[in-house]
């Protein structure tokens, strides 16, 4: 459980986060969305005790992060996978973290295997691709077997296999009852991974809502050889019908089952009945005003 309460963070005269309040609940993947400069990374840094809030607070499991003795066992974080000193090996990089949080050596070795870096465990990180660094960052985040995870753009630089791996990993972790907060710019990926969304813009909350409400069925596309008759019948049954450019009908207020039954009663042939939802990308663009942050 992550609680952000009335959080405000100013950098000089710039307000990066402005009275932001939201909760991230366990057992689901919460996507954290917003245009560049919306305050996502700042919010994550405040949650992790890296930036001091100007006012308000951010708590993890009811406590401030910087009061935790062994934080890696409670919260796993991946902020910037590039932030690794190149001279170290994955083994050395994870070992000092494990030592600082009293995590066993076995766990270091098993995490390296789990993220698929066993073959390069003793190679210097300097030669790693961004994808390999992301895997190392994930290993660090999961090292302490934490109940809460914060990941900032974890799929950047990953190949399709890696993207799929992260998606399944995060969904699995949430299914185990963990709290997962994930930020990403990739809408299609977010749509597949997240159950719930927190959308911010200019440091303020825009939406805090389940994914299925944002992508709920908007209308049904219907095609028929007797479109005019069908339109009349649908209107009579209480539907709102609009002609589409491609010759089909956009129907609101009736679901596919009702439309099918109605067409059968009037003996009107149907060529297509497709329920259509807004994509996350469309909804996001509408909510954030076209994507421009400022």
């Amino acid at each position: 459980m992550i609680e952000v309460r009335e959080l405000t963070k100013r950098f000089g005269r710039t307000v990066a986060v402005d009275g932001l309040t939201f909760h991230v609940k366990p057992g689901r993947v919460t996507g954290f969305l917003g245009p560049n400069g919306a305050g996502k990374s700042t919010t994550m840094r405040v949650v992790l005790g890296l930036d001091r809030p100007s006012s308000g607070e951010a708590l993890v499991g009811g406590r401030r992060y910087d009061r935790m003795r062994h934080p890696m066992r409670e919260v796993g974080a991946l902020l910037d996978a590039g932030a690794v000193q190149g001279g170290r090996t994955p083994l050395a990089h994870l070992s000092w973290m494990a030592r600082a949080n009293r995590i066993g050596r076995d766990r270091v070795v098993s995490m390296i295997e789990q993220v698929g870096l066993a073959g390069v465990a003793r190679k210097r990180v300097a030669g790693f691709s961004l994808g390999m660094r992301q895997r190392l960052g994930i290993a660090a985040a999961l090292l302490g077997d934490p109940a809460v995870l914060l990941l900032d753009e974890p799929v950047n630089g990953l190949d399709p296999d890696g993207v799929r791996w992260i998606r399944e990993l995060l969904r699995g972790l949430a299914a185990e009852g963990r709290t997962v907060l994930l930020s990403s710019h990739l809408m299609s990926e977010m749509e597949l991974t997240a159950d719930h969304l927190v959308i911010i813009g200019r440091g303020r909350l825009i939406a805090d809502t389940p994914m299925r409400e944002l992508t709920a069925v908007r209308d049904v596309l219907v095609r028929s050889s007797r479109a005019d008759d069908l339109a009349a019948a649908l209107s009579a049954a209480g539907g709102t019908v609009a002609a589409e450019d491609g010759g089909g009908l956009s129907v609101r207020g009736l679901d596919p089952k009702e439309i099918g039954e109605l067409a059968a009663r009037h003996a009107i042939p149907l060529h297509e009945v497709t329920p259509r939802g807004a994509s996350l990308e469309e909804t996001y663009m509408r909510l954030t005003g076209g994507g421009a942050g400022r």
Partner: protein
Amino acid sequence: MIDALAAEWLKLRTLRSTCVVLGVIGVVVALMALLAWYAVRLWEGLPPGQRDRLEVSSLPELANWLASLSLAVLGVLACSGEYATGMIRTTFTVLPSRGRVLAAKAGVVAVVAFCTGLAAVLATWAAGRLIIGDRVIRGQSAEALSRQMPLFLALSLSVAMFALLGLCLAVITRSAVAAIAALVAVWYVLPIIVNNVPAPWNERIGSVLPGALAGQLAGTGNPQSLGGELLSPLAALAVMVAWVAVPYALAAVLLARRDA
């Protein structure tokens, strides 16, 4: 605190710069041995009556002077690299108590610097004894090791002081370039400037410069250095502590206040 110390030790040990700096110390000792051999050649080339005109700077002190800068740079790199890569944020998410991180870094750097400094001085002394033998060359002490040990320990302590100064400057400036420039100023430029200040201020200021403190702490003075020798051993120790404590306090305050 033990966990933080162990973690910082692992970090320092696996930092590439550490190997480089320790390699430089090895080169310094080899250079000192070469100097000893060259001094012996010169000494033997002189007619016996003129041999006492040849004076060579004390090789262990010269080695210490170079080790001071090398380990001060190590002190800088123990922290500046984390700022350069952004890993400092990882460090503070792993160990959220910043005061504890600074203390652990300081502890590890101080011990490594003291041990390396002592090893450099002792190795230089041993090489010098082997090469010079029982020849009497001015500037090279022929006294027993037990008589010289107080000076050697004081010199090693000053290496630790320089290393901690480097670490604190790196935390304060968050930049390797700025911190190393400041260090070189204190280590080399400041003594030259102070030497040209009118008396008696040249000696007064020279006595509290970091490079002049080890000799005063051991009570042997600074026969060949630019510094003064006005301080009692206890006063020299106090000034040495101040050269660390003041920057350390500033670093701790900045670290606690700043966003990482």
